[in-house]
């Protein structure tokens, strides 16, 4: 059974619709990124949709939050959306992505605090 069937075949449908409604409210490029993220996560063959929901939820939450902040998609995800998705699902490369996020966090803090003028 593929992910779509799993999703549309049971009670996940409602949660899924809620996701899509939220995604619909995103600015265009964020919404495009959402579609791309979904596409990549579906590649993770054998999951049962439910396990994936919190991960999708987290990704969508990130997109919503950064859209509100006016951050560009590139600023948030970088070039490698596939790698980002692998990291989200905890698969290969998750560790190196976590390291990157860590560096990003410290770099952003340093840059923004610097802009504040100390």
């Amino acid at each position, binding site marked *: 059974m593929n992910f779509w069937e799993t999703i549309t075949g049971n009670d996940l449908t409602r949660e899924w619709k809620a996701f899509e409604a939220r995604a619909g409210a995103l600015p265009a490029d964020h919404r495009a990124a959402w579609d791309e993220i979904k596409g990549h996560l579906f590649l993770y063959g054998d999951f049962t949709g439910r*396990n994936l929901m919190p991960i999708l939820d*987290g990704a969508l939450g990130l997109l919503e939050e950064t859209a509100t902040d006016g951050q560009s998609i590139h600023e948030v995800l970088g070039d490698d959306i596939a790698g980002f998705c692998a990291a*989200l699902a905890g698969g290969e490369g998750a560790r190196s992505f976590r390291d990157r996020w860590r560096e990003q966090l410290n770099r952003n803090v340093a840059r923004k605090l610097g802009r504040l003028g100390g």
Partner: protein
Amino acid sequence: MGIHDIIEGKKQWRAHMARVKALPPDYQIVYKEMQRYFFKVGPVALADGSLLTGVVDFFEEGVAAGKGVLELIGNDVAAFSDDLIKDSPTYADIYQERISTKPGTAEE
């Protein structure tokens, strides 16, 4: 269900963000970057809300003590953030565990 609930728990989330906005700019910057990091990593502890409200509690104490944010938590914000979620599995961990213990089987 999950992380987004704390955002959509509207009134609560708005109250939470109002507290964040009342912090000095340097604290706000660090808080927002930390939150973004947590959203990416996806620790389960994020869902019950105590992780983020705990950070704001702690930050408010730091402000009251007249400290700058980096003075309070050190320069390595990522290390501080990781320390906060050290004991919390992430959604990805749970997902990976499920697919490795039940290969190819669908959930009931």
